């Protein structure tokens, strides 16, 4: 039996920058008959510090999640990267600490949103309507840490009016990489340009992804270059297709999902 109630790990990027993605996630889960709660003591998975080699700092932040989700039956995050951090790296990060068991428990019950909807809830697709052409960016950590195999695309497959056009290398990194985008901004931007060029070649109206980090990076580059494509989180797109959220008339520059 899939859990009737889940706890939302909204992630700090969505909370602070793209709250509408969090709202869309909640609306979508409720629409699928799942109760959602939001433990307010959560902040962030700690990935920026962990990926930079600052484990103690990462643990300090990561403990907010341990506390927030100790009692949760299942935890859902609209991010493959943040969910992947918890699932793949918390057991390692907390190994040999007093929080090891709690970290392992959380690692075992956290899901990325599309993974949860398809694999746990068993919803093979979402019915709705969304007119336009989209291209799908496979966010790296969802793909390689969570092991997504196309759940996001599957959920879009029955949306009427939506045409999915694949770009040349949908699984190539967008260059965000967390602190990488600040440490090596020139390289990160060159990687984003590569991705944007691929997306533009599809002539899509929107670039869909399951991670706010990638979307922030690509949106930031597209906005600077004046590209016309709308970067949008898969949760937002699905909520729009279901009529749970209104689709914006014209994309606001640099802000995915609005």
């Amino acid at each position: 039996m899939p859990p009737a109630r889940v706890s939302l790990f909204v992630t700090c990027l969505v909370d602070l920058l793209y709250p509408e993605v969090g709202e869309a996630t909640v609306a979508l889960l409720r629409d699928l008959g799942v109760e959602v709660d939001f433990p307010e003591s959560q902040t962030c998975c700690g990935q920026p510090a962990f990926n930079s080699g600052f484990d103690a700092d990462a643990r300090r932040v990561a403990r907010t999640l341990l506390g927030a989700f100790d009692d949760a039956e299942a935890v859902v995050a609209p991010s493959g990267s943040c969910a992947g951090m918890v699932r793949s790296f918390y057991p390692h990060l907390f190994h040999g600490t007093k929080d090891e068991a709690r970290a392992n428990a959380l690692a075992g019950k956290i899901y990325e949103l599309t993974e949860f909807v398809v694999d746990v809830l068993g919803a093979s697709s979402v019915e709705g309507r969304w007119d336009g052409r989209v291209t799908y960016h496979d966010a790296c950590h969802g793909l390689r840490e969570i092991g997504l195999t196309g759940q996001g695309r599957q959920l879009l497959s029955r949306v009427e009016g939506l045409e999915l056009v694949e770009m040349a290398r949908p699984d190539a990194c967008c260059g965000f990489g967390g602190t990488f985008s600040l440490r090596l901004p020139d390289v990160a931007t060159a990687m984003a340009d590569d991705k944007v060029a691929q997306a533009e070649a599809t002539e899509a109206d929107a670039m869909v992804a399951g991670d706010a980090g990638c979307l922030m990076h690509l949106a930031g580059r597209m906005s600077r270059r004046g590209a016309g494509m709308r970067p949008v989180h898969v949760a937002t797109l699905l909520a729009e297709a279901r009529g749970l959220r209104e689709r914006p008339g014209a994309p606001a520059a640099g802000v995915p999902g609005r």
Partner: protein
Amino acid sequence: MTPEASPSTRFKDRAASQLVNRRLPIVIGNATDLRERRRREAFAPLDGDGLRDAAEAVRAHTLANLDTYLERFADRAQARGTKVFFAADGAEALDYVRGVVRQAGARVVAKGKSMASEEIGLGHALEADGLEVVETDLGEYIVQIAGEAPSHITAPAVHHDRAEIAELFSRTHGVELPPDPEALTAFARGVLRETFLTADVGISGVNFAIAETGSFVMVTNEGNGRMVTSLPRVHIALMGMERIVPTHRELGLLLPMLVASAGGRPVTTYFSFVNGPRRDDEPDGPDEVHIVVLDNGRSGILAGEFRSILHCIRCGACQNVCPVYRQVGGHGYGSVYAGPIGAVLTPLLSGMDRAGDLAHASSLCGACVEVCPVKIPLVEHLIGLRRLAAKHAGAGERASFFGWARAWGSARRYRFVGWAGRLGQRLVTRRGRIRRAPFPFSRWTADRDLPPLARRGFRARWKAGANGSERPDGT
């Protein structure tokens, strides 16, 4: 001829100098995408995961018993008349090779492809001794006459397209050549044949050395490896000390894994086995065969948490899929080993103080881990190296993470930072975006816009029960 693309020792600066050339990702992308596509096709009908598990197990077992297998290899090789020399570092290896070359009275040295020789700077050292050194692998030959270092493990000249190579050959040889691969190859072959016939010493690399038999093997596509190892009177082979397999059985797994991962072909054109110097009843072959087994920092790696980096069989698959490598090319790394394998191996071989910044030359996308035929956990190793680097990080960086962790470590302080950020960003937000932010975010806004913090974050919206996010308990 200097091997460095740029005198700077920092990845950031070298990358910047490579990023100027916006054709580079196209040239590299064309070549590496083809190889990656072929690799996928080669593995598609096979149990790729099972093969990778098996290959990893072979490498792990071999490294765990490396002393035994090296000793066995040396014994058996010597029994075949091969002279085996264990070099603790590059200097020892250079001294030995120079000695052999001097003894042979050589004037011309024909070189096959060898990453170990690049690692110790052998070509330049011999040239400094007044010898004529000719690279006979086509890619290596191209970078040699271009005055460059190889930029890819299996495709040294991957950063040049055919037009550039035609221009290079035409310019350096005073001929007019078309940008046609066949014509260019035929031309190079003509030049190199002369070298093989006049060379007194041939120097080659080693793909695998077989402990059971004391023989070693090379894979090439051009046949130059076979010429280098059989025509000159003296053959010197260089190998990293980890490049060993217990028996032919393991070779039977690792050779096809190497070839399929490198270029997706079922076989290369040539597999060359060297069993030792020419025996009395054999018509040809070298009179002397020497093999230099190079440590050069490897035994130090063997003892620590990064041991599995020595699993590497030098296929270059990680370079073919690396999005950072694609943008900056091999020369961006400023080291013999570029791409993901180089970002881990170079700091371990050269020291964190000299090359530690390479650990940050990755977005941690993990594409490399997916294709590695021996399952090296490259992302984990990159993070492991960053952990080492963090211990010696500057005060600014340490303070940043310390402060961030204090703020993000409690929801109350996190909310306060959000509140303060919303106030502060009014100064820099224009029409819904931030085009110029203060340090460190200025690094972002140099080329990308930054979204402002939402006026009301998710948690405020949740609390207010707006947009259907009311709390289920009705409060």
